[in-house]
């Protein structure tokens, strides 16, 4: 558990213990003549001083801030408190004389609160407060006030302690995230400067040589594109539910598929961007199905004032005029149909243009809906 921020709290408790110890010693010296058993006050004060020194030393070590010491702390304080009627005497106590623990008894309340939060602080305050009331025969206003103050101290300090733990954890998480981000950037730069360059080189030389080397070149090209997509740190987009359609489409970039887009973000509501992305994916799948695995394709994204236009073009043989309408009429345009469906749901239109010798072009228009 992170506890750097708790160190000052523990130190403050030690200071409180010594200050209240001094107060107890002074009050014992002033009142010792009226005690029923004045000699017994000596070992009681010795225990008080020794315990103050011992806890200050032990609580300074995080390993000791657990149940055994916390319980011992509470028991020692209870013992001093319960010994008070015998040492001090009932009559003196009832006429308002302080117990042997007085303010010092708040020490365990604070340690419990800092170690375990509000609830634990309140429990310690109630136990010690009850004992304090028990040693007196009648309830006085001051002993009730003392109990209330101890209860409040336990709850307030517990609350502060919990806050420090939480903010410490939050701080650490933020630091970790930042470190991860920096490391990711460093890796991306490194990969960019070395591996990507070599892969591009292999691709280029290999393609020149042809044959088996050409195959290697093709693989290198694929890996280059995949790696590049992996290290691409997406540009921070505007806050809100909108996402950048460019980032969605960039995932389709391969050596065979070119993605052309503006330099500035094309923001769309996440759901719309996802649907457009899926439609483009379907169009690209269609290209592979009709033109074969190595077929090239070009995607163009345009950001118009009233909507976005995405075109997907391939270099296939094209579809003869009439064939398209015929196929659509027979309900055989499966993929095209799914593209149309998706885009129609967004209030957009799909146009399929095919020119013999210049491939097929699917143009998706999606209106920008005023939010």
């Amino acid at each position, binding site marked *: 558990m992170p506890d750097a921020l708790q160190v000052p709290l523990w130190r403050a408790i030690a200071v409180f213990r010594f200050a209240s110890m001094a107060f107890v010693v002074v009050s014992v010296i002033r009142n010792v003549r009226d005690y029923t058993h004045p000699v017994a006050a000596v070992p009681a004060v010795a225990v008080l001083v020794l315990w103050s020194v011992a806890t200050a030393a032990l609580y300074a070590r995080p390993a000791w801030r657990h149940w055994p010491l916390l319980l011992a702390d509470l028991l020692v304080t209870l013992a001093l408190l319960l010994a008070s009627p015998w040492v001090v005497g009932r009559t003196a106590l009832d006429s308002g004389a302080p117990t042997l623990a007085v303010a010092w008894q708040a020490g365990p309340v604070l340690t419990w609160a800092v170690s375990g939060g509000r609830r634990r602080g309140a429990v310690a305050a109630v136990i010690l407060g009850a004992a304090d009331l028990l040693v007196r025969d009648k309830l006085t206003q001051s002993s009730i006030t003392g109990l209330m103050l101890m209860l409040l101290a336990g709850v307030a300090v517990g609350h502060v302690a919990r806050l420090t733990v939480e903010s410490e954890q939050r701080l650490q998480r933020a630091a970790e995230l930042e470190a991860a981000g920096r490391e990711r950037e460093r890796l991306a730069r490194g990969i*960019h400067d070395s591996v990507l360059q070599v892969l591009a080189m292999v691709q280029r030389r290999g393609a020149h040589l042809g044959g088996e080397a050409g195959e290697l070149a093709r693989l290198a090209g694929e890996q280059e594109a995949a790696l590049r997509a992996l290290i691409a740190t997406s540009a921070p987009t505007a806050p809100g539910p909108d996402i950048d359609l460019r980032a969605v489409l960039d995932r389709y970039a391969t050596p065979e598929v070119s993605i052309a*887009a503006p330099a500035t973000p094309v923001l769309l509501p996440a759901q719309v961007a996802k649907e457009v992305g899926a439609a483009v994916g379907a169009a690209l799948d269609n290209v592979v199905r009709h033109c074969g695995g190595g077929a090239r394709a070009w995607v163009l*994204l345009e950001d118009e004032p009233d909507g976005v236009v995405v075109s997907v073009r391939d270099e296939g043989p094209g579809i003869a005029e009439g064939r398209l309408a015929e196929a659509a009429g027979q309900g055989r345009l499966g993929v095209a149909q799914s593209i149309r469906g998706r885009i129609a749901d967004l209030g957009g239109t799909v146009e399929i243009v095919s*020119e013999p010798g210049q491939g097929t*072009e699917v143009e998706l228009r999606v209106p920008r809906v005023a939010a």
Partner: protein
Amino acid sequence: MTRVMVVDDHPMWREGVARDLTEAGFEVVATLGEGRQAVRVAGAARPDVVVLDLQLPDTSGVEVISGLLAAVPGVRVLMLSASGEQQSVLDAVKAGATGYLVKSASSQEFLEAVRRTAAGDAVFTPGLAGLVLGEYRRLATTPDQADDDGAPKLTDRETEVLRLVAKGLSYRQIAERLGLSHRTVQNHVQNTLGKLQLHNRVELTRYAIERGLDDA
């Protein structure tokens, strides 16, 4: 013989490109790994074409391109990048680069791009066409730019041509589809770049005047 300078921080890549260029009959006048060094050397090496990696360790592509154009007026810059760093490619084009190619292009594509750059043609990838289209769109819709007559606009024909380039059609295919000559298509593409570069220079000058930097 066309004089070519190669600027790339990756030695293996630099040597490979230089060898390809020499084999293809270009004169490689210098190969360098740093942008600032390239700007210093350019004045003496007097290249016709600079093949420039957009990701150099010491300085930005825009800075190198401005430096090169100042040192050797009229030099043509062909940018290469390993990945589509979109904004940096667009910035480089606005700064005066006339060609762009991804590093994964084949040797033949690369040599052809150098040849065309040397001849003064704009070398576009579909990705670059998409960026340029987006930039004109941005200029038209940014309020303080749109009111201003100085903001460059594309003609309908230029938009049509750029869209086809972005969709991967070759100039020949575009010429065929639109019933234009190959040369006309090339001019349209080149104009789209020229207007952006001019606008960029005007903007820089205006910015300088507004800030009073022209007094210095």
